[in-house]
């Protein structure tokens, strides 16, 4: 089975974000493999362990994003490819989906593409569906379990985690699957994995390598980024002799302030 996992590099979720010179800044916080993508990498590896084949991690990003790919390699991916070109610097989802599709098509005869459900920086959460739409493959989004995968018949059955419950849906391969946290427990890279990844030469594909010169105009621009106003609340501590008194006072205050 030929498996691709699409990953992104993001600031760590513990980062304190500020605006610096009109741009988002995460200060000294580390850049990491997008936390959601760890589940996608894990699922790609679990699938490979069951079905055999190859796992390739691809990433659209700046040069630093090599580190995120090394994390994917350390976890166990066979190959990693960085798609990097200055013409993609201001990519929105329209451009990014086109770039990833071009990368997937260059890899040829791919059976399954995994995504994390969203990236913790831009929070867009549409990339899996957009890539599926461009490829004309089924979009199996927000998958919490793969209940059946038949490599011979080329079919897949999954449980999608929607607001109302788990939708059980099946479709043909190739397919695009975006995964949620419930699907697995990402592994820690092994010592051997880390050693192998640190030595790996990660191939870089430019726009021309994937046949996308010109024709990569984003639709969206971002005229301003700001930090949300911190609401100037000062905490009012509710005190009292015992829990009953405290609870009573708190309820009274909530009613006075018309919160309830």
């Amino acid at each position: 089975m030929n498996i691709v996992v699409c990953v992104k590099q993001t600031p760590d979720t513990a980062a304190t974000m500020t605006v610096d010179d009109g741009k988002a800044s995460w200060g000294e916080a580390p850049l990491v493999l997008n936390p959601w993508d760890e589940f996608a990498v894990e699922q790609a590896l679990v699938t490979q362990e069951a079905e055999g084949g190859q796992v390739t991690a691809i990433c659209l990003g700046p040069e630093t994003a090599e580190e995120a790919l090394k994390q994917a390699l350390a976890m166990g991916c066979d190959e990693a490819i960085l798609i990097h070109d200055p013409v993609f610097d201001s990519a929105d989802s329209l451009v990014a989906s086109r770039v990833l599709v071009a990368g997937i098509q260059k890899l040829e005869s791919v059976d399954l593409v995994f995504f994390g459900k969203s990236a913790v920086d831009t929070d867009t959460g549409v990339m899996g569906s957009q890539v599926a739409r461009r490829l004309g493959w089924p979009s199996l989004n927000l998958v919490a379990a793969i209940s059946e995968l038949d490599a011979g018949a080329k079919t897949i059955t999954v449980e999608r985690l929607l607001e109302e419950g788990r939708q059980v849906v099946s479709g043909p391969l190739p397919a695009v699957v975006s995964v949620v946290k419930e699907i697995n427990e990402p592994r820690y890279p092994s010592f051997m994995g880390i050693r192998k990844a640190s030595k790996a030469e990660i191939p870089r594909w430019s726009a021309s390598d994937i046949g996308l010169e010109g024709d990569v105009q984003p639709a969206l621009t971002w005229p301003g980024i700001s930090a949300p106003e911190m609401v100037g609340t000062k905490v009012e501590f509710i005190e009292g002799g015992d829990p009953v008194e405290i609870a009573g006072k708190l309820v009274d205050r909530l009613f006075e302030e018309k919160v309830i």
Partner: protein
Amino acid sequence: MIIVYIDHFDGRAIPASWETLGVGRDLAEATGSEVKAVVLGSDVEPIAQQALEYGAGDALLADDAMLEHFRPEVYADALTQIVKENEPEIVLFPTTSRSRELAGMLAIDLETGVSPDIVEFEMDGAVIVATRPIYAGKLLAKEVNLAGSPQVLTTRSRAFTMPEKGAVPAGAITKLELDLGEPVTEVHGYKESAAGVSLADAAIIVSGGRGTSNNPSLEPPAEITDEKEQEIWRAHQGFELIGDLAKVLGAAVGASRAAVDAGYVPYSNQVGQTGKVVSPDLYIACGISGAIQHLAGMRTSKTIVAINKDPDAPIFKLARFGVVGDLYDIVPALTTALEKKLGSG
């Protein structure tokens, strides 16, 4: 024209759809345009009728057995046909799992941008300047679509006011016959339907954190010998108290990442940067210290109440009301006090 997509499940509209319709009406007023609702599904005419009551100028209804289950490919085919036919300047969706996906696919079909999870709009001439949270709301980005018409956006639940239902709807339902291709996927049904109030729609959320397991006086049953299992058992007692409080308030139950990672409650309860971002009227944090990734997911709540043993817990910096105390003492007392107050009207 502005098109508003009405999301629904099991014969009922998702309430956030009406908030989105309200946004559509406001934008239509500001731009001298009209707003039409789109309802796709099977046996969903009552929802189209409701859309008229909530102020849609007209409702475009595609009622087809093929649309019984939400399948993004079929729904996107239907919606793209409608949008190409009607040439709206703006297409709006409520932000739900379904419509986020649908908006993304529509944007691909039309080669345009998509802006999910909008919390604010400004008009710059005919161009929408939309504000959306990024980095889980740690920052806000203004976003402009330069690709021209249509602009595809989804609005965040509870970020906009629910419009009043009008008494006499002005518009009418137009039934559409669409050319729907053979669907590629098959929906077999639903497993474990989510019970209770959904976090995204909840006006009140009561959340628990690591503190739920921090009650050494609780003695787990003798058959639970594993230390980790004992911890989870203790946490379940804490979440039971939280559940009782939530019940009295008609609230949803949330949790911190620490509580989910420790296996206390399922991931679907998680509030935070890698969980759900919520914005209720009242958020009661019980035994949650307030890691930055949790705060990012609930900071826009209107009123925050924090109950924590540690007076220096970061959660108190965001809270309007704070109680320094043990959730095991305070939460049940709060439940009783509210029962009395709400019971007596």
